[in-house]
C-alpha cells in the first residue's frame, strides 16, 4: 500500500554535488572523480585536433555570414569540449539528434561542412542524409528532437541493435514541455538514450537564473528515475569521460542517462543577435579564461602528449579545412523552384501538380 524510496536508489540517481572535473581552468589535473574512467591519451589527442578544427570551422562560418554566404549562423565558440566529446563518445552506428547550435559536432562526425551549412545557407533542407549519417536534421523547434531521439532509441532496442542515441539540447530548451515528456518516455520505456544538456547559461538573452530555480539542471533526472550527472563542460577530459560512461550505461541496457555540461556561449546567440544588450563584457572575459581548447592544450602539453609541432599540424589541418570550405561556399548553391513540390509527399497530390503548373506558367511567361 505504501512506498518506500531507498536512499541508495535516490543517491544513485542524483548528480554529484559539484560538476565532475579532471582538469582545472589552468590545465592542471585535479583529484580524479570516482566512477568515471580517464579517457585514453590517443583519444584526448584526437579530441584536441577536432577541437582546433571545430573552432576554425566555427570562425569560418561566422565570417561567411558577414559575406552574405550564410543567412544566419549560431556559433558554438566556447562549447567545443561539449561538441567534440558528444561525438567522440558515440560509435559510428549510434545516432545523434542535434540542435541548430551543433554544427561543430556534425562536422566532427564527418559530415561534409557544406552539407552541414545547407539550411543556414538558405536552402530548405538539412543537407545531409540522416539515415546514412545517423544524424537527425538539426532541430530548431526547441526540445522537440528529444522525444524523437527516444523513439529512435526505442526502435533500435526493438530491432535488437545495441546502438545508442544522444540528444543534444540547450539550457533554455529544458523548460519546454517536450523535454519533460521525452525524459519520462525514455525512463518508462528504458530506452538507450543519453540526454546531453549544453548549459551555456543563456537562451538568447535569458540567463539561467530566469530559466530555472533548480540546484542544477541535472537534478531533473531523479524525477523520472533517470541517472544524472553534471560535468564541467569546458573540461574535455571530464565531459568525454562522463558522456562515455552515459553511453555505455545506455548501451548496456541500463536505461537513459542525463548529462548536464556547464559551459558558456562566447559569441552572441547568432550573428544577428546583439549580446551587449543583456550581458556584461566582464562576464564574457571571465569565461575566456576558462576556454576549453586552451585548457586541453595546456593539459596535454603539461603531460607531454602534445608539442609545438602537434599544435601546428592541428592548426594547419584546420586552416586547410577552412580554406576548402570557403571555396566551396563561394559557389552559389543551385536551388530548383520546382523541387518545392517534390518532397511534400512521396507523390505530389493533384493539387500540388496544379500549383506546380501555375508556377511553371509564371516562370516561363514572357517578360512584359
Amino acid at each position: 500500500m505504501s512506498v518506500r524510496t531507498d536512499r541508495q536508489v535516490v543517491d544513485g540517481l542524483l548528480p554529484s554535488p559539484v560538476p565532475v572535473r579532471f582538469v582545472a581552468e589552468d590545465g592542471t589535473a585535479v583529484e580524479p572523480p570516482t566512477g568515471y574512467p580517464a579517457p585514453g591519451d590517443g583519444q584526448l589527442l584526437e579530441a584536441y585536433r577536432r577541437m582546433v578544427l571545430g573552432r576554425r570551422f566555427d570562425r569560418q562560418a561566422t565570417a561567411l555570414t558577414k559575406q552574405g554566404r550564410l543567412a544566419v549562423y549560431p556559433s558554438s565558440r566556447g562549447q567545443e569540449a561539449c561538441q567534440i566529446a558528444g561525438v567522440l563518445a558515440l560509435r559510428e552506428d549510434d545516432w545523434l539528434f542535434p540542435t541548430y547550435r551543433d554544427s561543430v559536432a556534425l562536422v566532427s562526425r564527418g559530415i561534409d561542412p557544406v552539407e552541414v551549412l545547407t539550411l543556414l545557407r538558405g536552402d530548405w533542407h538539412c543537407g545531409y542524409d540522416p539515415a546514412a549519417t545517423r544524424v537527425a536534421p538539426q532541430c530548431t523547434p526547441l526540445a522537440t528532437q528529444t522525444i524523437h531521439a527516444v523513439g529512435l532509441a526505442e526502435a533500435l532496442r526493438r530491432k535488437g541493435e545495441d546502438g545508442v542515441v544522444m540528444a543534444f539540447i540547450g539550457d533554455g530548451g529544458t523548460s519546454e514541455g517536450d523535454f519533460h515528456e521525452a525524459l519520462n518516455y525514455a525512463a518508462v520505456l528504458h530506452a538507450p538514450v543519453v540526454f546531453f544538456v549544453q548549459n551555456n547559461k543563456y537562451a538568447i538573452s535569458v540567463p539561467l537564473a530566469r530559466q530555472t530555480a533548480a540546484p542544477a539542471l541535472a537534478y531533473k533526472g531523479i524525477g523520472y528515475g533517470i541517472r544524472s550527472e553534471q560535468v564541467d563542460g569546458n573540461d574535455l577530459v571530464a565531459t568525454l569521460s562522463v558522456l562515455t560512461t552515459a553511453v555505455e550505461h545506455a548501451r548496456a541496457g541500463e536505461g537513459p542517462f542525463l548529462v548536464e555540461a556547464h559551459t558558456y556561449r562566447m559569441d552572441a546567440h547568432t550573428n544577428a543577435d546583439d549580446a551587449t544588450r543583456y550581458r556584461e563584457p566582464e562576464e564574457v572575459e571571465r569565461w575566456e579564461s576558462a576556454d576549453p581548447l586552451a585548457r586541453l592544450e595546456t593539459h596535454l602539453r603539461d603531460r607531454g602528449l602534445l608539442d609545438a609541432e602537434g599544435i601546428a599540424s592541428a592548426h594547419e589541418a584546420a586552416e586547410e579545412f577552412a580554406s576548402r570550405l570557403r571555396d566551396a561556399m563561394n559557389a552559389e548553391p543551385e536551388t530548383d523552384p520546382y523541387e518545392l513540390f517534390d518532397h511534400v509527399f512521396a507523390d505530389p497530390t493533384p493539387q500540388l501538380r496544379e500549383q506546380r503548373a501555375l508556377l511553371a506558367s509564371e516562370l516561363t511567361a514572357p517578360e512584359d
Partner: protein
Amino acid sequence: MTAMTMAQALNTALRDALREDERVLVFGEDVGPLGGVFRITDGLTTEFGENRCFDTPLAEAGIVGLAVGMAMGGFRPVVEMQFDAFAYPAFEQIASHVAKMRNRTRGRLSLPMVIRIPYAGGIGGVEHHCDSSEAYYVHTPGLKVVTPATPDDAYWLLRDAITDPDPVIFMEPKRLYWSKDETAPGDRRAAGFGRAAVRREGLDATLVTYGPGVPVALQAAEAAAGDGIDLEVVDLRTLVPFDDETVVSSVRKTGRCVVVQEAQGFAGVGAEIAARVQERCFHSLAAPVLRVTGFDIPYPPPKLERSHLPDADRILDAVDRLQFDDAPDVLHLAREAS
C-alpha cells in the same frame, strides 16, 4: 461479407495490419489492456503482445514525437489520440515535424505513420470531447487527411493509411463507430486515397460532404426525394488529397451545390470546398454554393448539441434556397436587413 460496425472494421484493419507487417505498432493512451476508450484496439495486446500494442505515459506530444522517432527507425506507428481536443498538445509535433520531415530532409526521411483521431460530436460528450479539428490538419501542408463514413471505407482507408509512405491524419467520426454495414475485409473493394464516392446519384443539386456529414446528407436526400428534388451526395473520403474531378463533374451536372460539414463554419473545410467549386464550376452554377455547418461556437453540451449539428432540415432549408425558381435569396435579404 459480414455486417460490421465501423468500430469493428477499424479494429479488424489494425489486426490485419499488425498481422501482415511486423513493423506496424499501435500505441497511445489506454489502447492496451483496456482496448481504448472506444474499444478500437480491443484485444490487440492480447493477440499481438505488449510489444506491438502498448500504453504510453499520458502525453500527446510525447506519443506523436515517439512515433516520429520510431518511424525514422523503420517502424510504422499507428497512434491514437483519445479525443479530438486532446490532440492539441501534439500540435507542434504534428505541424513542425510530422508534416515536414520528408521536405526538411529532401525526401531522405519519410514518416509512414498514422495518427488516429476520434472526432466530432453527436454522442452527448462533455466539453473538449467533440471538437471537429480536421480543418487544422488539412491546412497544414504535408499531411494527408482521411475520414471514412462507412465501415467498409474505415477498413480500407485505414489499411491504406498504414501502408502509405506519408503521415496520415485519420479522423474517425465517433458517432458513426456503431453504424453498421456489410463489409468484406480482405476482399478489396473501396477506392484508394484521393477518390470521392458518389453515395447517391441525383440530378437537381449536389451535396458535398464527408465523415459525420454523410449519413445526414443521405437522409436529407431521401427526404428531398419525397418532395421531388433529386439530390446527389458526394462523400469526399479523403480531404487531402482532394478529388476535384468527382466533385466538379457532379456539380457541372446538377448546377447546384450545398456543402455539408459538422465543424464550425468559418474557414473550415467547407469553405475550401465552396471556394473550389465556384472557381471550377462558375458557369455551370445556377445558384451560389451554400454551406451548411455547425455554428462558430465552442462545441455545445449534450443538452444542446441538437441545435448545433447540421441536420436534414438545415440541409433542406439550404436546398430550398438554391433558387430553383430564380427568386432572390430570402435569407440573404434577411441577413442584410439584420
